[in-house]
């Protein structure tokens, strides 16, 4: 496979940027040669991750800072880093809900992160030394 360039995307902390993010990420996943079903999953994961930043991490911030995305295709992985400047999230405390029980129990939180974990091969969250947060999403390329 040819070496693909990496991309850096800085988006405003506004939900109207989500459509652009989905478009860019799906285009790059397609360029990486991923099958359509996997491209769809990457689209969901990145959209939900960015939505979580805007809705939760940036909830108390006005104006909302930008969100930074770094997208890299290696020979066997498609990697997306989503970096925000919001509140730290207790990633380890998230327990994957059971569906559809979660809905019947009246819960609405945690659905986005559940989808992210289901759609990607690896998800890790880290507080960076400069007090930003990085969510790294990895999809293996067959």
């Amino acid at each position, binding site marked *: 496979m040819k070496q693909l360039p990496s991309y850096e995307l800085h988006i405003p902390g506004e939900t*109207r940027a989500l*459509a652009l993010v989905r478009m860019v990420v799906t285009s790059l996943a397609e360029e990486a040669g991923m099958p359509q*079903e996997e491209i*769809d999953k990457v689209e969901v994961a990145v*959209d939900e991750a960015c939505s979580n930043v*805007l809705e939760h991490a940036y909830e108390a911030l006005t104006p909302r800072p930008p969100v930074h995305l770094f997208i890299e295709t290696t020979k066997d992985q498609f990697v997306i880093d989503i970096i925000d400047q919001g509140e730290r999230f207790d990633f380890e405390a998230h327990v994957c809900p059971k*569906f*559809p029980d979660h809905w019947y129990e009246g819960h609405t939180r945690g*659905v986005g992160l559940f*989808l992210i974990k289901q759609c990607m091969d690896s998800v890790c969250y880290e507080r960076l030394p400069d007090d930003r947060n990085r969510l790294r999403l990895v999809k293996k390329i067959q």
Partner: protein
Amino acid sequence: MLKRQLDIQVENVDSVAVVSLAGAIDPTNVDDFKSALKPLCSEPPAVVLLDCGDLSYVSSTSLGLLFYFHRICQASQGTLALCCVWDKIQNILRLLGLDTVLRIYKTREDGVKSLQEEAKKAAKAKT
């Protein structure tokens, strides 16, 4: 330019409220989706078919709303169902167990035909 539009068209087909959705439902327009469904699902007997043939994306928030409105319709002996759902959206519904909760028809015709019977029963139960 960045905002992906959501187009919502509602028509009544023999007591079935058919809602045609086109575009993407995400946090920019989920309130429009909610506002469109609320009156349709609140007036019993609510028999609603969402035609997703031109719907290319749904976020988790809108899927939560689907479950919420399903329960509202169910409480009035009504039904909220979907038709013409893209594979990518079917896969998300499956992950969230909504494929076992919501009725999903392959075609709009199948959905309307089946729901018309439901609408008749619901109307009869109301009287």
